[in-house]
C-alpha cells in the first residue's frame, strides 16, 4: 500500500528543473510574533486595503434596502417622522422657541446630521460582531469594518439632504455663504460617530452588553443635543460647555450653514477637540483589542 501512494507522488512530481519565476529572494519578509504593547496604528496598512473598504461600503449600501417595500425611502422616513412628532409636541404644544424659523425646518436641519450620526453609531458598534465570520477567517485591518459601516450611511444622508433642500425652497430660506463649511460639520459628525463606534464595537466583541447600551445611549444623546430646541436657551458659559457634546457643534453648525442662525463660535472648537479625543482614544483602544478579536468574537 505504500507503493500505491508513492507512485502517485512520483508521477505528479517530476523534479522541477525549469526556472521558477516565483522563487525570489527579494520578497519582503513578514514576521509574525506575539505583539507587545502599542505597535502603532498602521494606517499605511489601512491604505493598502482601501478596495476592501470600498467594497464593504458598497455591499452595505446594496443590501440595506433589499426586500423592503419602501426601499431607499426609509432614509427619509426616519428623520421626517421624527420631525413631524417634534413639530407637534415641542413646536406646537410646548411652544419651544426656534430662533424665528419655522419649527419643522429648524428641527429637520438638526435631524438630518443626527440620523446620520445615530445610524453610523448603531451600525458600527454592531459591525465587528456582525462580521464575525470574516474576522475569524480572513486577515485585514479590522478598522475597515467599523469604518465601512459609518461610511455607508453617507448615501442615506445625501438622500435626506435632498429633502432638506426641498423644504428650504418650500419655506423660501436661502443658505448664507457659511454653507461652504457644511462638509466640515459633516466630517465632525462622522468623526464623532466613528470615535464612539470604535469604542463600542471593540467593547462589543467581548461584552455583548453593548447591544443593550446602544439604544439607551442614542436616546439620551438625542435629547442632550439641541435638536428639538436651540442651544441659545442656555446662557453663555454653559452654552460653550454644551459643546462638550460634539453633536451640539454639528447640529448648530448645520443650522448656521443652512438656515443662517447665529454662528456656533466657540462651541465648535470645544466639539472639535472632544470629537478628536474620542476618535484617537477609540482608535488606540480598538488597536489594542484588535489582535484578540478573532479568538473572542
Amino acid at each position, binding site marked *: *500500500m505504500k507503493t500505491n501512494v508513492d507512485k502517485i507522488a512520483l508521477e505528479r512530481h517530476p523534479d522541477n528543473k525549469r526556472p521558477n519565476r516565483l522563487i525570489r529572494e527579494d*520578497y519582503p*519578509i513578514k514576521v509574525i510574533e506575539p505583539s507587545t504593547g502599542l505597535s502603532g496604528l498602521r494606517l499605511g496598512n489601512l491604505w493598502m486595503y482601501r*478596495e476592501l473598504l470600498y467594497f464593504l461600503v458598497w455591499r452595505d449600501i446594496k443590501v440595506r434596502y433589499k426586500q423592503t417595500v419602501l426601499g431607499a425611502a426609509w432614509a427619509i422616513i426616519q428623520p421626517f417622522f421624527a420631525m413631524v412628532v417634534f413639530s407637534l409636541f415641542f413646536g406646537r404644544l410646548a411652544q419651544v422657541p426656534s430662533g424665528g424659523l419655522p419649527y419643522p425646518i429648524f428641527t429637520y436641519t438638526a435631524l438630518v446630521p443626527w440620523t446620520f450620526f445615530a445610524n453610523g453609531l448603531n451600525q458600527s458598534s454592531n459591525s465587528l460582531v456582525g462580521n464575525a465570520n470574516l474576522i475569524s477567517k480572513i486577515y485585514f485591518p479590522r478598522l475597515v469594518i467599523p469604518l465601512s459601516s459609518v461610511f455607508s450611511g453617507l448615501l442615506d444622508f445625501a438622500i435626506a439632504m435632498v429633502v432638506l433642500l426641498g423644504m428650504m425652497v418650500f419655506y423660501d430660506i436661502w443658505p448664507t455663504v457659511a454653507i461652504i463649511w457644511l462638509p466640515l460639520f459633516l466630517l465632525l459628525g462622522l468623526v464623532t460617530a466613528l470615535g464612539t463606534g470604535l469604542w463600542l464595537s471593540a467593547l462589543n466583541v467581548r461584552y455583548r452588553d453593548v447591544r443593550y447600551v446602544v439604544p439607551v445611549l442614542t436616546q439620551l444623546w438625542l435629547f442632550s443635543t439641541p435638536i428639538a430646541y436651540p442651544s441659545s436657551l442656555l446662557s453663555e458659559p454653559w452654552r460653550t460647555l454644551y459643546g462638550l457634546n460634539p453633536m451640539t457643534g454639528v447640529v448648530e453648525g448645520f443650522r448656521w450653514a443652512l438656515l443662517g442662525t447665529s454662528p456656533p463660535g466657540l462651541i465648535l472648537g470645544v466639539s472639535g477637540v472632544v470629537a478628536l479625543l474620542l476618535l484617537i482614544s477609540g482608535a488606540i483602544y480598538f488597536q489594542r483589542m484588535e489582535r484578540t478579536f478573532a479568538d473572542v468574537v
Partner: protein
Amino acid sequence: MSNFAIRVENLSKLYRIGQYEYHKTLRESIMEAIFTPFHLIRAKSQRANSPQTNEDNTIWALKDVSFEVKQGEVVGIIGRNGAGKTTLLKILSSITEPTSGRAQTRGRLGSLLEIGTGFHPELTGRENIYLNGVILGMKRSEIGEKFDEIVAFAEIEKFLDTPVKRYSTGMYVRLAFSVAAHLEPEILLVDEVLAVGDATFQKKCIGKMGDIAHEGRTVLFVSHNMGAIGQLCKRTVWLDGGQVKKIGPTYEIIHDYLNPSTSTIGTWHNSLTNEVDSEIKLVSASISTKGKSQTGIVRFDEGFNLEIDYEIQTPIGSPWTLVFRVSDSSGVGIFTSWDIDSIGEDKPKETGRYCAICHVPGKILRPGTYSVSLGIYFTNTNMHISNFHEHLFYFEISSVGYTMNANRGGIITPILPWSIERSHV
C-alpha cells in the same frame, strides 16, 4: 538555505476554553477595574507563583511547532480534528496571534480557510465574485481580468445575475471555490476546502490545486483527503495534539498516519469529553460479525455490521444524517453511506442515547486494511459539515473465503450474479 517561504520557530498558541473568560460581563469588569489597585499586587504575585492556576481552562492548540517550507514547495498538513492544523494556518495568515514563538513568511500570502467567506445571499453571483475576491485579497482589476475564467470554471454563466440565495448548494460551492481558486498569491494556505461539491467537481478542484502547485507557488495544504495530499504534496507535516509528530516525504507520513498500529482496531470510543455546540455526540463505534472471529477482522465472504452509538444532546430541529465512509489503506474513499439513504427522515429527534446499525454485505471489499470515518451532516445547510472524524478506526478484511486470484484489478472485488443463455442466431 535562505530561500524559505515559510519559517516557523517554536510556535505556540494557548486558547482559553470553557466559560471563565468569556462570560465576564461589563459589570464584573467594572468592579474589577475599581478594585484593581487593591488586588494588583496580590494578583501579580499569585500569577508569578502559579502559572497553572487556569490550566483546566486552557488548551495548547499548538505547542513548539517548528518547520520550514522552501519557496515553490507544496507541503501537506495532516492530523486529526483538533490537532492544530487550522490554528497554524490562522497564525500564519495573521488572523490570530501566537502566544509565543515566531513565524516568518516571504512574499504575498493568501489564505483559504473557508470558501465563500463574505458571500452575501442577497447579492448576485456577479457581485459576489467581486466582493469575495476583494475580501480574499485580490485587486479589483485582477478580478476583472479573471472574471470570465472564474465564471466558466464555476459553470454558472446563466445564473450570473441571480441572487446567490437562489442558488443550489452545488452552484454555491462551485462559485465559491472558483473565486478562491483564482487567487494568485506567492504563498497559498489552504484549509480543507476541497471536500465540496459532487465527485466530478471535486476532481476538478484537485486538478486546479495541482495546477496551482505546479506553477511554482508555495502551498501549505491541509486536508483529510489522503488521496489529494498524496497527489499534490511531496512533503507532509503530521500534527498531533498541537505538536509536530513527524515531517517527511508524503507517502511515508501517510503510511504511518494510516497505519493501524497507531490506532484502534475494530472499535472506537470518543475520548473528546466536551464537544462544544454539537447537538449530536458520537459516543462509540464498532465492527461486529456474526462469527466469533477476532475483533476487527472480517472474513471476505461474511459481511459485518457497523454499530454506531450516539447521543442526542439537545432536541434536533433540522434534518440530519449519520454518515460513515470506508477508505482503503492509502486513504482513498471506497464508499460513503448515509443513514437517510435507507431509513429516510424517520429518525429519533429527542435527546437520548441511540445505536445505529448498518449492515455491509460480504464479497465486496477485497482483502486488506480499511479505515472508517464517521460524521454528522446537517443536510439543509450549505455543506455544513459538523464533526466529520476521519479514519477513526480500522478493520481488516481477511482472505478467508476469498477464492479469486489475488492480482485481480480494481478497488473492490464484488461477486456478481452471472447467467448464461444460449443465443439463437
